[in-house]
């Protein structure tokens, strides 16, 4: 055993402090004594390490109800009495150190404005659907499908059959309502007013489940009769102006609907949104629905079922009922299994990602990223506060000393400095509020989903803001307050410089390094992200998108329009297509190929185009020709495929020309391959190029006209096209967009991301720079005498600047060494793996970000150190 000639080992201090903190004073001495006795004993028998461990464990084990002390109200009372004094001293110290107060308050204000934005955003997300009276017991029916190859899909939609069956078979369900989406038609009120309208079918219990107040009409019967129409106030104004809407007739296509109710406009934060409701029975009455078995168990794509349960419902029992129901129905299904589950209404907006969402849904990662970014910026500003307060503690240590001698306890000093930081943080909150208002408009403009959040101010929101400010204040002030609380009064008053201000140097350095690491990560992320985003836009898709205007046909036949458009001089060429590729939408079908006896079939992507489509987009045919057989409807015989398709079905191995004339079966139609296209991007950059076919179709009322424009004067060309359109379709306004712009739109989420991160980067760099600036000012100030003496002894200015800045530069280098590899790996291993096609990460972006950060930092450090190095030593030394 080791006999310790030097100091004997002691029990761990923190454990003892913990005991002191929680234990009742009358028990403390005895307990601590026991722990000490055991510790001494264990020291001899088990060694120092085990003894310490046992001490810690025992100290923790003593934590029992009877040992814990009651809170002392007297202390709190003293805090309250002293608040006036704290406030006064805080104000004085703020005014005395203007630069540092400014750095602290501005930094906190700027970062907090982002925090406020995130708080407002989250508060909106969590207040979705709160206006429903039965919100806590309303559920949505989710559908999960599992196919033979084990692919599982989760749908927000379900089958009508499920809805009806639940009503019939499952006990303990209060109300069930069935909703169906997909009614788009033109509402004709009179010959003059024809308004395109998007409506939702709903059954009579709709108003039992949801709380949408009805201004006119009877909620109980409004959706009962076939061809009943319930509209919102806004829609009523659109259709009838100021006239009474109830009881009026609206004509859709060939059928008359009667307005049976007018609803108050929907609250902004409702995940279900509609312009009008149509009674579900009207839809079921129309037999000639293209959608064959509306009531099929597997028809799960357009219908939604919501239900309310009684209070304290037996969820497990209902789930069991659902399982039983699906098990019974699944016996009639081949290749697929469908199961049902319930989703509480408050999990709809901010929950798991589902296919066929009916309305608003925020993916959780987006929210987490926003919270994370705001946190980083706020924490960075807190670091500044912590750093500067500790660095400048010498100035205030005397005040603390006097307070302690007069009778302040540790807790009081702690409270004082926490109160001070909270006051500063509240000041910052006041400043940050206008910033928040500015940010809010910017942010609302940036969100792709319109009306997703309103970010309206409310008393509740102000409460959240206040809480945020207090939390920020406590976080920022905690370490400095602890530092001041530990100051020993006598020592300070005897010799203020004896305080070990520099004891916390390594912590402060670490904080600076963290700030700069984040700044660097942000800036390089922004640069790389921007570069990748530009890369997506300029990526060679395999065909051209330049000067092509895509016009949505909105149900019109194209013959006439084509003829008239062709007469516009600016129009070069006109093509027809069912969909626009490379924008992210996919349109798939099944293709069969019989290769020497073994039939093979797979999913392929598809587009219907006319003969002008390929030349207009300059698709590259590597074998064969364009469509030769051009039937006006139906009897197509030809198909054009891409290289991937040949590879997938092993139609040819080498020469693509061999594929010409081979027959494939698409949607049960035998078609002959007449052309082979060079591979092109059918989907977005996150999709691999997969087998794709083009089929012929001369007429696409649901599709697009692709108009090649040759003029340089786009506005004029657009105006003349719009004039033609207006003659042609009086109901729908022209819906046209340039292909290039559509592609930009398809990648808009990345633009938004780059903008958001770019903005946060700017803030992070500002805050970090302010912090660095403060530290440099402080260091040079405290070392002014040293510098003067060095100068007198003959040090050169350059030498002095180097001496003063090398410490900071070293920290920046460490930050760089951490940040760059992290960013690179993050993009290389996480982000860009999601994109099959992308540009490589350029070293130039990484280097550029380092250069930018370094330049700013050099400027901060250089200006101050130069000032110090140039000061006249005589002036500095004289004043002593």
């Amino acid at each position, binding site marked *: 055993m080791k006999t310790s000639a030097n100091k004997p080992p002691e029990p761990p201090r923190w454990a003892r402090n913990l005991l002191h903190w929680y234990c009742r004073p009358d*028990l403390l*001495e*005895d*307990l*601590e*004594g*026991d*722990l*000490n*006795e*055991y510790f*001494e004993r264990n020291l001899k028998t088990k060694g120092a390490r085990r003894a310490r461990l046992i001490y810690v464990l*025992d100290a923790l*084990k*003593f934590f*029992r109800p*009877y040992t814990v002390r009651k809170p002392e109200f007297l202390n709190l009372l003293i805090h309250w009495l002293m608040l006036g004094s704290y406030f006064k001293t805080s104000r004085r110290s703020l005014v005395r150190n203007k630069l540092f107060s400014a750095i602290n308050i501005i930094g906190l204000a700027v970062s907090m404005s982002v925090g406020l934005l995130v708080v407002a955003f989250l508060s909106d997300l969590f207040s979705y659907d709160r206006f429903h009276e039965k919100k806590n017991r309303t559920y949505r029916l989710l559908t999960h499908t599992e196919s033979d190859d084990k692919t599982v899909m989760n749908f927000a939609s379900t089958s009508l059959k499920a809805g009806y069956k639940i009503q019939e078979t499952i006990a303990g369900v209060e109300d069930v309502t069935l909703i169906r989406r997909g009614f788009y038609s033109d509402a004709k009120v009179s010959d003059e007013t024809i308004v395109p309208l998007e409506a939702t079918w709903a059954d009579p219990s709709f108003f039992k489940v949801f709380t949408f107040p009805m201004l006119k009409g009877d909620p109980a019967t409004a959706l009962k009769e076939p061809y009943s129409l319930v509209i919102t106030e806004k829609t009523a104004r659109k259709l009838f102006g100021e006239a009474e809407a109830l009881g009026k007739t609206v004509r859709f296509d060939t059928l008359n609907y009667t307005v049976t109710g007018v609803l108050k406009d929907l609250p902004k934060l409702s995940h279900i949104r509609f312009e009008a409701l149509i009674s579900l029975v009207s839809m079921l009455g129309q037999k000639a629905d293209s959608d064959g078995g509306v009531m099929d168990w597997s028809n799960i794509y357009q219908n939604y079922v919501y239900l309310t349960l009684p209070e304290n419902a037996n969820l497990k029992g209902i789930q069991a009922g659902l399982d039983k129901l699906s098990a019974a129905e699944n016996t009639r299904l081949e290749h697929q299994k469908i199961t049902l589950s319930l989703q509480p209404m408050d999990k709809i907006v901010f929950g798991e990602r589902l296919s066929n969402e009916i309305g608003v849904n925020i993916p959780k990662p987006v929210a987490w990223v926003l919270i994370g970014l705001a946190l980083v910026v706020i924490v960075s500003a807190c670091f500044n506060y912590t750093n500067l307060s500790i660095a400048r503690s010498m100035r205030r240590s005397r005040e603390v000393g006097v307070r302690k001698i007069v009778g302040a306890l540790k807790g009081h000093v702690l409270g004082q400095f926490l109160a001070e930081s909270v006051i500063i943080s509240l000041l910052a909150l006041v400043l940050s509020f206008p910033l928040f208002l500015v940010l809010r408009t910017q942010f609302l403009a940036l969100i792709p989903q319109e009306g997703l959040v309103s970010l309206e101010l409310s008393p509740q929101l102000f409460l959240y803001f206040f809480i945020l400010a207090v939390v920020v204040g406590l976080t920022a002030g905690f370490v400095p307050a602890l530092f001041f609380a530990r100051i020993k009064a006598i020592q300070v008053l005897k010799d203020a410089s004896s305080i070990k201000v520099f004891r916390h140097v390594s912590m402060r350095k670490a904080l600076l390094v963290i700030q700069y690491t984040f700044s660097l990560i942000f800036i390089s992320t922004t640069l790389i992200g921007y570069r990748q985003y530009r890369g997506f836009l300029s990526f060679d898709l395999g065909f051209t998108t330049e000067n092509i205007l895509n016009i949505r046909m909105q149900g019109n036949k194209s013959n006439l329009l084509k003829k008239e458009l062709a007469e516009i001089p600016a129009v070069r060429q006109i093509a027809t297509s069912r969909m626009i590729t490379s924008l992210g939408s996919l349109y798939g079908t099944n293709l069969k190929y019989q290769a020497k006896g073994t039939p093979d079939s797979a999913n392929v992507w598809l587009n219907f185009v006319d003969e002008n489509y390929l030349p207009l987009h300059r698709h590259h045919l590597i074998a064969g020709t364009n469509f030769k057989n051009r039937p006006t409807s139906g009897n197509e015989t030809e198909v054009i495929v891409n290289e991937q398709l040949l590879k997938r079905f092993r139609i040819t191995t080498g020469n693509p020309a061999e594929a010409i004339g081979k027959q494939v079966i698409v949607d049960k139609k035998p078609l002959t391959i007449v052309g082979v296209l060079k591979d092109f991007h059918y989907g977005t950059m996150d999709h691999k190029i997969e087998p794709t076919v083009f089929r012929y179709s001369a007429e696409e009322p649901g599709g697009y006209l692709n108009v090649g424009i040759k003029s340089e004067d786009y506005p004029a060309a657009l105006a003349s096209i719009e004039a033609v359109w207006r003659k042609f379709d009086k109901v729908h306004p022209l819906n046209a967009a340039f292909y290039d712009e559509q592609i930009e739109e398809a990648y808009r989420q990345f633009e938004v991301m780059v903008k958001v991160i770019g903005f946060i980067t700017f803030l992070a760099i500002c805050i970090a720079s302010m912090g660095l600036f403060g530290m440099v000012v402080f260091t040079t100030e405290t070392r002014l005498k040293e510098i003067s003496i060095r100068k007198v002894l003959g040090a050169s200015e350059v030498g002095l600047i180097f001496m003063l800045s090398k410490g900071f530069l070293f920290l920046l280098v460490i930050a760089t060494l951490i940040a760059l590899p992290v960013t690179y790996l993050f993009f290389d291993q996480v982000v860009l793996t999601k994109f099959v096609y992308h540009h490589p990460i350029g070293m130039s972006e990484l280097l550029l970000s380092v250069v930018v950060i370094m330049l700013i930092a050099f400027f901060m450090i250089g200006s101050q150190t130069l000032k110090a190095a140039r000061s006249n030593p005589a002036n500095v030394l004289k004043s002593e």
Partner: protein
Amino acid sequence: MKGTNLGEFEELVLLTIAALINDAYSVAICDELEKYTGRAAKLGVVHAVLNRLEEKGLVKSRMGEATQARGGKRKRYYEVTHAGKVALTRSKEVREALWRIIPGFNLEGSV
């Protein structure tokens, strides 16, 4: 007052205090218990029991003198009160009464 019935461990602790006479403080009680019962007595548990016994009024305590040994902390000495003695005696009587009515008691095998 809470129930005056003694739990098994409470009874053991109480007996130990009585046995240690003037030297009954927490660590000594732990050691003694360990010596006689052969099972490890945890400090936290013993403290909790001592606290409970004092609440029940079965023991009383006083602080001793400070010594060098425990980091300068004083010991808390315990002493069985009259109520404690009564409780101990009663529980002993109950046992003996029960023992007396067992006709013959044969320990088979080893203890």
